[in-house]
């Protein structure tokens, strides 16, 4: 099926399920996507009436990880009596993973939500398109057949969909949310088995430390420390992020490269075994920094060291929440 038709099917699936859940009072509200006001965007929307269900959309620009809106730090959806509302949440695979992981970390109660599973067919990478189009302003972007159509002033360009996808969507093995009984509706994965050889990492891994340093420096150098990545990340739900902590001030807040990379290093540390690979951080970065390399290595560390993939099994503890006598310790120094 061409992408255009897949999108239509997914959108239909969302609307049908949303309508059914609302009608049968299975949920109080639906959290989903609607059209954004500027090209290359989509917006989150909360719907509480069956009539509004058609406002829900699906396209390849729906990069936001909606799970973020359920963490305690975000104002909770309540009714007039101040009771928590039951939420149906439109979930591509990475949203499902985020929800499951958040429940492991006691941040949400799965009992209180319904996961509306959809088979995600990939998110378009804005940076790749901008690199292609240059400075020119884009008015509209759409999918036709298996192509992306870009319209702007003096501009109409057709690009093959597959080449402009996020890299992470190419390695993604959890396109639909992992299934949980009584919580999931729609399209979900029964007992997903993740088999990843991380071959996309081989090239980077073979670099020397100096080459890696240069590569990462090139990647992160333009970071303005706007923290958009953090704000959009479903796993960044701390009351007070480590970069903002005082007493003592562990990390500088300047845009000296030492401050930039230590921020990203510690953030990565805090994401290990937790990142669900949704790529929202890269999509949202105003400087177009793609954090996929870092996020992929986080998945790799968790998988290869601790045989763990985040957000698959609500019963499994992430690496930093557990320990094991038998863990590898090849990195520890030994006498010659």
């Amino acid at each position, binding site marked *: 099926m061409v992408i255009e038709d897949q999108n239509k099917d997914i959108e239909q699936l969302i609307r049908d399920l949303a309508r059914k859940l609302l009608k049968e009072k299975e949920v109080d509200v639906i959290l989903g996507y609607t059209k954004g006001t500027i090209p290359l965007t989509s917006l989150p929307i909360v719907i509480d009436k069956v009539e509004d269900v058609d406002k829900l959309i699906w396209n390849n620009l729906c990069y936001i990880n909606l799970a973020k809106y359920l963490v305690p730090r975000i104002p909770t959806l309540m009714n007039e009596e101040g009771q928590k509302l039951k939420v149906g949440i439109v979930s591509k695979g990475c949203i499902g993973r985020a929800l499951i992981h958040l429940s492991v970390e006691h941040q949400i109660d799965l009992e209180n939500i319904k996961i509306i599973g959809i088979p995600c067919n990939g998110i378009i990478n804005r940076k790749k398109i901008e690199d292609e189009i240059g400075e020119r302003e884009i008015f509209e972007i759409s999918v036709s057949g298996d192509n992306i159509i870009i319209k702007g002033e003096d501009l109409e360009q057709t690009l093959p969909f597959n080449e402009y996808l996020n890299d992470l969507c190419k390695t993604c093995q959890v396109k639909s949310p992992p299934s949980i009984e009584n919580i999931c509706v729609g399209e979900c994965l029964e007992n997903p088995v993740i088999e990843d050889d991380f071959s996309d990492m081989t090239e980077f891994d073979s670099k020397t430390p100096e080459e890696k340093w240069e590569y990462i420096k090139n990647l992160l150098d333009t970071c303005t420390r706007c923290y958009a990545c953090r704000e959009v990340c479903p796993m960044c739900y701390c009351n007070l992020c480590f970069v903002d902590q005082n007493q003592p001030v562990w990390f500088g807040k300047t845009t000296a*490269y030492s401050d930039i990379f230590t921020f990203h290093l510690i953030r990565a540390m805090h994401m290990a075994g937790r990142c669900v690979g949704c790529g929202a951080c890269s999509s949202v970065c105003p400087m177009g920094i793609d954090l996929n390399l870092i996020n992929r290595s986080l998945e790799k560390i968790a998988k290869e060291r601790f045989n763990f993939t985040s957000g698959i099994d609500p019963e499994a503890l992430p690496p930093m929440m557990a320990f094991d006598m038998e863990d590898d310790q090849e990195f520890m120094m030994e006498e010659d």
Partner: protein
Amino acid sequence: MSRIQYPSNIRIVRVPCSGRVNPFFIIKSLLRGWDGVVVSGCHPGDCHYVSGNLVARRRFAILQDLLNLFGIEPDRVTFMWSSASEGDRFANLIKKVTKNIKRLGPNKKFESTW
């Protein structure tokens, strides 16, 4: 205890257990200008606090992997086990650490540069 000699360019910070060592301490030390950081704990199974070192080991494994990812020289930060009775081993490892760090030269990557 043992008076086995080891290089004098190392300063020791006392913590209750390797489990106490937050990655913040390590990174901050490097930002502060120390040329290398060593974290030493009791051997697995011998931790005075039972499993503090096992919790720490996962943390350090991840940190070490990430330091490698970011292109920090692998020998800037060293993790090791050495028990209270292993004066020899401690001295040998510290000698090895200082040798490694001398080879790397000063810690430039953590210098504040724009």
